[in-house]
């Protein structure tokens, strides 16, 4: 792999840009691999990357039904934060956030991590108490956050209407090192690094079955034929239930469409990410100037990657109260992604009832921010055969054993 650098840009500029090579190879599948990862989204590619980087396992294939990063990795609102209440969540999300800090250098690929700061508005007295509690918890967990008053909110983001009338801004939980990153670049950067380590990224290859023998996985049936493996990692987000069904077990997961939209581009007017959980909307401004807006998930299970019109209406109606400036903006486009929700709104990183088969799913509405940490923890689990410290609490059995990591109550909303 040729490294990207200022020198490379200068060199190619002098020879008509003829020397750039493909960022990753598109090989035909080999008969078998040590590890197969199903799903070439951020989490799947990060898992493969850390298998190679941390454990030297490079005889790996990443199989993808569609195209690389074309699922939820390309459909989120790119927010990165780690201000969670529960200890296991804060640990893995903070690991992810800290890996994002130098991910561009690590991958030699600009993921445009922008730690512009994330604020979660408190618009009811209940939320003030909740966020103060989170700020205290974060202090103990080593996550840098603080609770700020409405004057500081207005100073950081002048376009917010802090005085109401229905939902005045009473304060906010502020994480200065949270922010955004370029979502496609995260997938592309990991893919390029994986390909460079000799891993095979096989796109447009749908898994249609999981083969097993004596309770151990032996491979997967795909639209490009049977591919054998010693270990299998299932990292397919919204379609986890479908893959689990092929492998012969059930999951505590329900799939829901979550949608987002962007406005027409306007001049820079906000340089922080704002989440307003009471009115249920969040917004940031992309580098192109579009206002990127996310709302709540559909209120019912479905697999339609488009979302429903009345949810857009609810989200925009709510945000206009807090951001009057957007009332005259035209909305450019909207889209939906299928998110895999667990009962406690925390992910699953776990061995499964099928031998040598591991699953990473249940990130729900907040998977993008977790990509590096999730890949790190999943790679450790697959390499060692048992979950490491980051993943230990996120097992499948926690539901049966009543050890919920209850972020749904902590956040009060999807997060």
């Amino acid at each position, binding site marked *: 792999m040729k490294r990207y650098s200022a020198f490379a840009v200068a060199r190619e500029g002098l020879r008509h840009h003829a020397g750039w090579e493909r960022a990753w190879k598109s090989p035909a599948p080999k008969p078998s691999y040590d590890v197969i990862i199903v799903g070439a989204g951020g989490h799947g590619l990060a898992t493969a990357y850390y298998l190679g980087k941390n454990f030297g396992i490079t005889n790996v294939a990443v199989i993808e039904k569609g195209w690389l990063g074309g699922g939820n990795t390309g459909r989120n609102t790119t927010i990165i934060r780690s201000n969670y209440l529960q200890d296991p969540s804060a640990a893995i999300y903070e690991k992810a956030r800290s890996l994002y800090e130098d991910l561009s250098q690590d991958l030699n690929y600009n993921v445009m991590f922008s730690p512009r700061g994330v604020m979660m508005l408190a618009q009811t007295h209940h939320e003030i108490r909740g966020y103060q509690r989170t700020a205290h918890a974060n202090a103990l967990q080593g996550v840098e956050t603080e609770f700020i008053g409405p004057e500081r909110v207005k100073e950081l983001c002048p376009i917010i209407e802090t005085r109401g009338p229905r939902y005045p801004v009473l304060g906010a939980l502020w994480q200065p090192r949270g922010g955004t990153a370029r979502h496609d670049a995260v997938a592309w950067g990991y893919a390029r690094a994986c390909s460079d380590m000799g891993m095979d990224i096989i796109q447009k290859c749908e898994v249609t079955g999981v083969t097993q023998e004596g309770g151990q996985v032996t491979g997967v049936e795909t639209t490009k034929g049977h591919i054998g493996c010693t270990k299998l990692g299932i990292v397919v987000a919204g*379609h986890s*239930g*479908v893959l689990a*069904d092929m492998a012969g077990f*059930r*999951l*505590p*997961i*329900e*799939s829901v469409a979550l949608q987002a939209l962007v406005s027409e581009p306007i001049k820079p007017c906000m340089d922080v990410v704002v989440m307003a959980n009471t009115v249920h909307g969040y917004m940031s401004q992309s580098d192109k100037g579009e206002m990127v807006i996310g709302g709540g998930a559909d*209120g*019912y*299970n*479905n*697999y*339609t990657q488009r979302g*429903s019109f*009345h949810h857009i209406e609810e989200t925009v109606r709510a945000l206009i109260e807090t951001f009057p400036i957007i009332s005259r903006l035209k909305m450019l486009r909207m889209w939906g992604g299928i998110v895999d929700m667990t*009962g406690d709104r925390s992910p699953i990183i776990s061995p499964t009832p099928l031998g040598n088969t591991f699953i990473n799913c249940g990130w729900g509405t907040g998977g993008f921010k977790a990509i590096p940490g999730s890949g790190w923890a999943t790679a450790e689990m697959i390499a060692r055969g048992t979950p490491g410290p980051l993943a230990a609490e996120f097992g499948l059995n926690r*539901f*049966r054993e009543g050890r919920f990591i209850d972020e749904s109550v902590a956040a009060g909303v999807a997060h």
Partner: protein
Amino acid sequence: MRITCPYCGERDIREFTYRGHALAIARPAPDAGEAAWDDYLHLRDNPAGATQDLWHHGPCGAWVIVDRDTVTHEVAGSKAVAEVKR
């Protein structure tokens, strides 16, 4: 999406509240054991395609079982929970 309430006729989805998969009405016996209750409380088939779930119709208070497709939003039919389970 429009859902037919068995008592009120076809109505807009916004009149209804989603209450999860229809397996909720097949509650195991209190002494059915840990595995049966884990299955009932937590595990889901989560199909991409035909499913059957419970909706609550706000205006009339009826609980409705709806046959629905999770990929196309097509509603195939509906019946009152009261007719199925007494």
